[in-house]
């Protein structure tokens, strides 16, 4: 067999391997995003219940509650992109955090069994969301590395793969809102 044929075969195999690895990385990201979506939905499902139970007591935080409801409606719209979902998640996390902090100011609410139940459910969903975010971020990092590193980057450009963005881990947002409200 002529050497040129062998070289061609090797090149083809390498290209196939590169192509497949890129596709599998992209699918992994999508796969995990489906998991993220599922837990996010779990949290959105808790919101109407939460708003209904606390709205009677919370006079001063009405705007917070309407905001959360609005965000939920937005998130439930069909055909929103991954990018928008990520942005919405950050806003919802921050708004829910503020509501939970506000609950602390109402002793009646704090003792309410229904609210307590919701609070626990939210905490648990929040832990699952945090895990899902971390899994998503890792898969996106793998994907981004592959499309930027030699040699797969050439292939990625040819396939028109774009960088994806990761979730910010929203720890500080919660605290910011908290402090501001305390001094008002």
């Amino acid at each position, binding site marked *: 067999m002529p050497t040129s044929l062998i070289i061609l075969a090797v090149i083809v195999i390498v290209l196939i391997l590169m192509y497949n690895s890129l596709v599998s990385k992209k699918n992994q990201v999508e796969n995990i995003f489906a*998991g993220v979506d599922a837990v996010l939905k779990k949290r959105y499902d808790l919101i109407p219940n939460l708003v209904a139970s606390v709205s009677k007591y919370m006079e001063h935080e009405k705007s917070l509650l309407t905001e959360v409801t609005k965000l939920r409606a937005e998130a439930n719209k069909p055909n929103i992109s991954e990018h928008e979902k990520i942005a919405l998640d950050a806003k919802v996390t921050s708004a829910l955090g503020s509501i939970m902090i506000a609950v602390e100011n109402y002793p009646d609410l704090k003792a309410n069994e229904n609210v307590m139940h919701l609070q626990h459910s939210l905490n648990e969903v929040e832990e699952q969301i945090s895990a899902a975010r971390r899994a998503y*971020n890792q*898969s996106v990092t793998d994907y981004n590395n592959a499309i930027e590193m030699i040699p797969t980057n050439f292939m990625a450009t040819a396939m028109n793969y774009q960088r994806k963005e990761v979730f910010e881990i929203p720890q500080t947002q919660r605290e910011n809102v908290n402090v501001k409200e305390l001094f008002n």
Partner: protein
Amino acid sequence: MKSTSELTDFYYKNLYPTLKKLDDERKHLRYRIIVIGVLYTLLFFLLFLAFSSPNTLSGDFLAFFAFAYFGLGTFIYKFLIKDYTKEFKNKIIEPLIHAIDEKLTYASEMYLPQHYFNKSELFTSSPDRMSGNDYVKGYIDGVNIEFSDLHAEKKHKDSKGRENWSTIFRGLFIVSEFNKTFHGKTVVIPDTAQNTFGSLIGNWLQSKNLSRDELVKMDDVEFEKEFVVYSNDQIEARYILSHSLMKRLLTFKQKSKHPVYISFIGESIHMAIYYDKDLFEPSVFHSLLDYKIAMEYVKTLHLAIGIVDELKLNQKLWSKR
């Protein structure tokens, strides 16, 4: 739970009279073992001289003789220390365990059932022979926990059809209820590939491990250096291994000073600490009052029973309450 220093105090204060008595026994026993050992060796040597002639002196013959010498020797040794071991376990180890928690049950001759070992999926080969002892079971802070010494072995046949046994695991095996609900399987094992081959090739090798599930890369640099995680659910693995649990497992690993294998399967966390020796056995050639020896008993027990507190297994998530 009592601290290790409180337990050491207990060992030296409350158990002192018993220790003193046992230590005297130990000295007699040591003397007996040395005398019998010398006689036994002499006898074997004479037998060897009597049987060996230039035409029988082959490698096989020597191997057989050495095998018989060590096999019979171990048997005699175990027989000699049997009573002493039993007394030590009943009078020292058991009170020590009860000093940690009175409601713990202890059975010196039992060990964890084999199905726990198989279910844990910590080791990919399944054992053909299991042995062990020092089984402890109980309920600490509302959390079920059990552990024992285990020795899991696999049978091999060499080209000549001779049997030999290799060790899969030897050390402390702990099974406890986990504080979160999960459905998949997550296994955390010591990271050997990344340590020997560096992170790039090591990572690649790990992802190609066919006997394990998918590789999970964790977002804690220290943890990634020490362990490698495999799971059939990328999200759930991170749900179980929160940042705080990863920190705690690292601390645990540093404390134990031995390789640690952890898996989360079913409702439980399984931990295997590879000591490569039988634990909680009385020392024969060193004094029981020796601080180093005392500390080994105390520390190992404290480490095993302490996981509930150390890993915060008692802080159950609300849905598990």
